[in-house]
C-alpha cells in the first residue's frame, strides 16, 4: 500500500502543493544539468582521435596557408587581423558540423539512442551536451591553422578593440553551436544519407562572414547570409577588429545573433520532436 504523504502541520494544502511542485521542478532542472554535464564530459573525452586529426587538420591547414598567403599579399592590417580569426573559426565550423551532424545517427548505430529515449531527460539536452563538447574541442583543430597563418604572414594582427573582441568570439562560438546543432536531427530525418554535408561546409564559410565582412557578398546573397546567426557574430568581430563601431553597436549585434540563434534552436527542438515521434510510432530506432 502506497504511503500517503501528509502536509506538514501549519502549512495550508495549496501552498504545500506549490512547494512540492517547485521542488520537483528544481530537481528536474538539476537532473537535466547533470545529464548535460555528463554528455559533455563523455564526448569531450572522446572528441579527437588520430583519424580526426588527419581529417580536420589535413583539410584545413592547406586552406589556411592559402588564405594566409592572400592576407600577406594584401599588406593590409585589417585583412590580416580579420582572416587570422577567420581561419580558426573556419576549422571549428568544419570539424563541428561534421561531427555534430552525425552525433544523433551515431547514437542510433551504437545502440545508445534507446537508452536516451527511456530517460526523463529530453534527448535534445543529451545531444546538446555532446555538441557543446564538439564545438569547444573544435578549437584544437583550429590551432594548427592559426600557427600556419602567422608562419606565412609573419606579422602580428592589429585589433583595435580587444575587450569587445573576446566576448564577440564567445558569441561566435555560441552561434556556431546553434548553427551546427540543427544538422543532428536533420541527418536522421534525411535517413542518414551522407554526402550532403560537403556543400554545407563551404556554405558556412561563404555566408558566415568568417573570412570577409558580410558586406563583401553581393546584395542578394547578403540577405541569405543574414539568416545565419554566425553572420551577426562576424559583424561584431569585424567592428571589434576595425574599432569603428561603438560598444553599444557591437552589443546590438550580439543581441541579434542570439535572437537568430534562438530561432535556429527552436527549429532544432521541433526537429528533435519529429525524430522522437517518428521513431516511437514506427519503432525504427536502429536507423
Amino acid at each position, binding site marked *: 500500500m502506497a504511503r500517503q504523504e501528509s502536509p506538514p502541520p501549519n502549512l495550508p494544502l495549496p501552498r504545500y502543493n506549490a512547494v512540492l511542485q517547485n521542488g520537483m521542478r528544481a530537481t528536474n532542472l538539476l537532473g537535466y544539468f547533470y545529464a548535460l554535464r555528463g554528455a559533455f564530459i563523455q564526448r569531450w573525452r572522446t572528441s579527437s582521435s588520430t*583519424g580526426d586529426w588527419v581529417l580536420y587538420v589535413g*583539410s584545413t591547414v592547406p586552406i589556411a596557408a592559402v588564405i594566409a598567403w592572400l592576407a600577406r599579399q594584401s599588406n593590409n592590417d585589417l585583412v590580416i587581423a580579420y582572416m587570422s580569426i577567420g581561419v580558426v573559426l573556419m576549422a571549428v565550423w568544419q570539424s563541428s558540423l561534421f561531427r555534430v551532424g552525425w552525433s544523433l545517427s551515431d547514437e542510433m548505430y551504437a545502440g545508445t539512442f534507446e537508452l536516451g529515449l527511456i530517460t526523463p531527460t529530453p534527448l535534445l539536452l543529451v545531444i546538446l551536451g555532446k555538441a557543446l563538447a564538439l564545438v569547444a574541442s573544435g578549437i584544437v583543430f583550429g590551432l594548427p591553422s592559426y600557427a600556419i597563418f602567422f608562419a606565412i604572414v609573419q606579422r602580428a594582427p592589429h585589433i583595435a578593440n580587444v575587450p569587445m573582441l573576446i566576448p564577440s568570439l564567445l558569441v561566435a562560438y555560441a552561434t556556431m553551436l546553434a548553427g551546427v546543432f540543427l544538422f543532428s536531427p536533420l541527418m536522421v530525418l534525411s535517413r542518414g*544519407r551522407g*554526402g550532403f554535408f*560537403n556543400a554545407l561546409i*563551404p556554405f558556412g564559410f561563404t555566408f558566415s562572414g568568417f*573570412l*570577409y565582412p558580410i558586406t563583401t557578398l553581393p546584395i542578394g546573397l547578403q540577405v541569405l547570409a543574414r539568416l545565419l546567426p554566425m553572420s551577426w557574430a562576424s559583424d561584431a568581430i569585424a567592428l571589434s577588429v576595425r574599432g569603428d563601431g561603438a560598444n553599444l553597436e557591437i552589443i546590438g549585434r550580439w543581441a541579434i545573433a542570439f535572437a537568430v540563434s534562438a530561432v535556429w534552436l527552436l527549429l532544432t527542438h521541433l526537429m528533435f520532436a519529429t525524430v522522437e515521434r517518428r521513431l516511437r510510432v514506427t519503432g525504427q530506432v536502429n536507423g
Partner: protein
Amino acid sequence: MIKPNPVTRAWAAYKGLWGWFNWPAYISNVFLRPGLTLILFALIGKFALAAPASQAYMISVAVYAIPVILLGSVGSSLVSDLRFGTLSLILSTRANRIALYFERLLFHLPNALLTFAAALVFAWLFFNLELSAVSWPALLLVVLAAILSSAALSLLVATLLLVLPQGWNGMTAALWGTIFALSGVIIPLNALPLPLRIISEGLPITHIMPAAQLAFAGAPFGEVASHLAREFLVALGYALFGCLLFHYVLEHLRRTGGLDTSHA
C-alpha cells in the same frame, strides 16, 4: 555464353557502390560545393586584393572542382566495393583486372565535367565572369586533360585505400587540401618554395592552371599544347603506376585475407 558488357558492369558499380548517388548528396557535391567554393574564393580575393584577382581565381577554382569530385567519388566507391564484399566476388571471376580497374571510373567522368560547368555557371551568374574571349575548343581539351589526370590519381589513391579503408576520409581531405595549396589554384607556382614546387609538378591540374587561364583569354591551341602535353604525361604516369599498384594490392589482399570484410 553471355558476353560481359563493360558498360553494364561500370554502371552497376557506379550505382551500387557510390554513396553519393542520391539527390541531396549528388546536388550538393556536383553542383553546390564547387559553386560555393568558387563564391568563397572570389570574395576572399576581392576582400584581400581586388576584383581582377577574383576573376582569375574563379577560373582556377572551377578547374579545382574536377579533382575534388573525382577523388571523393572514386575513393568512396572502391572502399565500398571492399566493405560490401563485392570486390571479392568480382575477383573470383575471370574479369580482366585492367578493365576492372578503369571501369570504376567510367560514369564518374561526366560528373567531373558537370561540376566544372556548374562552377562556371555560378561564376557567370554571381560575378559576371567574362566568357566572350574564351577559346572553347582549347578549353574543352584543357578540361579533358584535367579530368584524365585527376581520374588517374583518384584510382591510384582508391587502390591505396583498399589496404587502409578507414583512412578514406582523412586521406581524401588531405589530398584536396594539398592540391588546393600546391597546384597553383590560388598561390602561383613561382611563389612556392623549391621542395613544394617539385611536389606540385607531380600533382594533377598543376599544368592545367596556366592552360585554363590562356584558354579563357582566347589563346589558340598551340599556346596551351605544351601544358596539356605535360598534364597528359602526369596522367599516364598515374595510370601506369596505378595499374601496377592495383595488381600488387589485390595479391596482397588475397594472401593476407584482406578481402574478408567481416572486420573491414
